[in-house]
């Protein structure tokens, strides 16, 4: 907030006091480190658009969460770490912060120490630093629904199911084409490990950020002649990959996109080259889900919709933003049930996230049946066992081509714990217990 807006707030507060009508409504605030310009604007506008649309829906339809109004303000980061830190410093002094949602691994990394000191949750839905799944070491960081390792496991399991079983992976060749950023590199070790475990040949190729030139990489791929290419892209890298694949003669239906290569914005610019391309997702696209319908009716009907281009309603990023809104709001609601219907502290919201259990029945009650499956977060599992599904692009829209699939969490957990325990040791962090998680700071 600017100095002037503080001044303005102070003036308004004074006016209230003088008028002796000091009714202070409870508010819960979401600071948004959004990005609406730059190479990743498509992801940013869709995701933050969906998030804001859902917060608006709760305010307009329900008058907030149990009467507590939801507020937010935005700061532009352009997906750059320095700008993200600046926006964090700018917005962190606002009262009643519920959680941070930067949607950038780089910014999230820079914030881990800071938000841990502040005792405010940091949500990295479907991305983030994998070992933050271990709530014993990272009390305030939540890679909700799907951490990068689970995504990898889901993709490998899907390829195996196409080939007829995990034992059929032996001798197959998979190329992972990844974005040259902390996000892109996060899965390098886990692909290595799965390749050793299942005996498939693996080659991992980096595309430098932002990825608008990939001729060399795809020529290498053609030389290596893999059975599948996993596209671990982001932003402009994805359509370029699909177009270059077509140019070098690699079939689109053997390219599997990861969770940040699965949107309409990734395939539409690639035109025909994207037909048959398959990608993993945690939330289906389309606007037929009741919650999306209500947003169309209530929020866009009132002229308060956040997306400029209405045709993007129900797109993958928009729906992810809505799911992210549901998870944030439900965490606040769960925390309110314990601490009271008032403005909560960051630590109380953290407790809410650690008890964020939405079974399929509750998901249906929220109007999100088939939009996403379920979530089951606990104090030590900050991911919450999200399910994935696969969708194929037919040139016009995404069609779901698989059931909800569970990643191999049992296999991944020991690797995650090893990494988080090493981090704890390096940084002198005491490993938390269940009792520590129940001690909540309420002021």
């Amino acid at each position, binding site marked *: 907030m600017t100095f002037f807006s503080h001044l303005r707030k102070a003036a308004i507060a004074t006016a209230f006091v003088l008028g002796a009508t000091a009714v202070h409504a409870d508010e819960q605030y979401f600071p948004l480190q959004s990005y609406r310009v730059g190479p990743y*604007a498509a992801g940013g*506008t869709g995701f933050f658009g969906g998030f804001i649309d859902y917060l608006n829906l709760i305010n307009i339809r329900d008058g907030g969460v149990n009467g507590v109004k939801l507020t937010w303000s935005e700061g532009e980061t352009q997906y750059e770490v320095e700008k993200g830190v*600046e926006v964090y*410093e*700018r917005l962190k002094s606002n009262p009643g912060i519920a959680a941070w949602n930067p949607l950038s*691994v*780089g910014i999230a990394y820079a914030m881990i120490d800071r938000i841990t000191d502040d005792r405010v949750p940091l949500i990295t839905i479907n991305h983030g*630093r994998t070992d933050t799944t271990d709530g014993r070491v990272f009390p305030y960081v939540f890679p909700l629904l799907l951490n990068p390792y689970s995504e990898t496991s889901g993709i490998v399991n899907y390829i195996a199911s196409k080939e007829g079983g995990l034992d059929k992976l032996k001798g197959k060749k998979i190329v992972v084409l990844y974005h*040259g950023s902390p996000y892109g590199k996060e899965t390098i070790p886990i692909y290595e490990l799965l390749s050793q475990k299942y005996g498939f040949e693996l080659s991992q190729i980096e595309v430098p950020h932002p990825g608008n030139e990939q001729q060399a990489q795809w020529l290498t791929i053609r030389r290596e002649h893999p059975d599948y290419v996993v596209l671990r892209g982001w932003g402009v890298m994805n359509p370029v990959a699909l177009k270059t694949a077509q140019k070098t003669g690699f079939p689109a239906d053997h390219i599997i996109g990861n969770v940040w290569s699965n949107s309409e914005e990734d395939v539409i610019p690639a035109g025909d080259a994207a037909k048959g391309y398959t990608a993993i997702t945690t939330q289906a696209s389309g606007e037929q889900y009741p919650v999306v319908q209500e947003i169309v009716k209530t929020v866009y009907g009132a002229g308060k919709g956040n997306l400029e281009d209405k045709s993007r309603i129900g797109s993958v990023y928009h729906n992810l933003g809505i799911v992210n809104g549901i998870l944030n709001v439900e965490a606040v609601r769960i925390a309110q049930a314990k601490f009271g219907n008032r403005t909560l502290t960051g630590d109380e919201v953290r407790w809410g996230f650690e008890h964020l259990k939405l079974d399929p029945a509750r998901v249906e009650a929220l109007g999100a049946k088939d939009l996403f499956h379920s979530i089951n977060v606990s104090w030590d599992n900050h991911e919450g066992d999200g399910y994935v599904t696969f969708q194929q692009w037919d040139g016009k829209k995404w069609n779901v081509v698989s059931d909800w699939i569970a990643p191999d969490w049992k296999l991944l957990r020991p690797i995650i714990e090893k990494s988080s325990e090493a981090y704890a040791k390096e940084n002198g962090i005491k490993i938390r217990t269940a009792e520590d998680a129940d001690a909540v700071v309420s002021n």
Partner: protein
Amino acid sequence: MAVQALDAARLPIHWQKLALPAALIAVAYGLIPAYASSYLVEAILLPFLALSLAAVGLNLLTGYCGQLSLGSSAFMAVGAFAAYNFNLRVEGLPLAATMILAGISAAGIGVVFGLPSLRLRGFYLAVSTLAAQFFVQWALTKFGWFSNDNPSGVISAPHLTVAGFSLDSASGRYLLSVTTVIGLTAVVWRLVNSATGRNFIAVRDNETAARVIGVPVLRTKLLAFAISSFIIGVAGVLWAFTYLRTVEPAGFNLDRSFQILFIIIIGGLASIRGAFLGAAFIVVFPLFLSRLGAFVFGGLFDSGVLDMSQRIVLGALIIIFLIAEPNGLSALFDRLRRRIGSRSS
């Protein structure tokens, strides 16, 4: 310009010229730690100090010695990653030693990439320093050892302690930054007023003439690369350890090199004050514009539109400033001071 600089160097130091820096130092140590908000320190002063120091370093090379370089952010990266590794791998190494070793590592790489300057000049040299930019980023990404095999290639800053005192708080990191910047700036200030500084200027203004009067041109150029890279390397440590507290190789990309070059062009070449004025313009001004834009138009447009319009305003202002005073903000500042001086007398 050269004649002016030589004259200045021959004259005794004007002590009254030190009044302003002394006042600034008093503010830096007295007022700011006591009164500044955490936003001012973390989001404005820390990046400002690190970039100012990098600009002082580049100004030594480009402004004083005339060697155009686009490798600044590579040298910052070398400094940051060297400091991280020295701190990680040498037990009990004091912070000051870590920073000096990091600077020396950057200086070493700087000299290597300065070698083409013996044959190349101007734009050709700039292009060859691009090699440093790409090579360093490639090496840091390619070899996981540099980032201690972190899968994402991101390093996190260690805890900062000096003589048992923790400097992890915002004000601690600020004091570390400001002390380093003042110390190194003082060294550079002495250097440019010494015989070596005059050699730099001689090489810049006319290399052949410099050689004729007996300036060791090769040694001077390499020395400029070494000292400049040392300072930029330490600036990289400040950027990584005191400001962001986390760094990935891509954070030190070509954009950052351009940013530092623009700082010294806008601030004023061959002027220490220019490096600080330029950094203030590049770091603080966009934030000011963004806050102003958000305050005035915040309700009307979304943050993307505001950000785009800020860039247009900033670009236009840079053009206006440079037309008004091609020698940069530093010269503009002098002109203003002279005008105010003549009016009051």
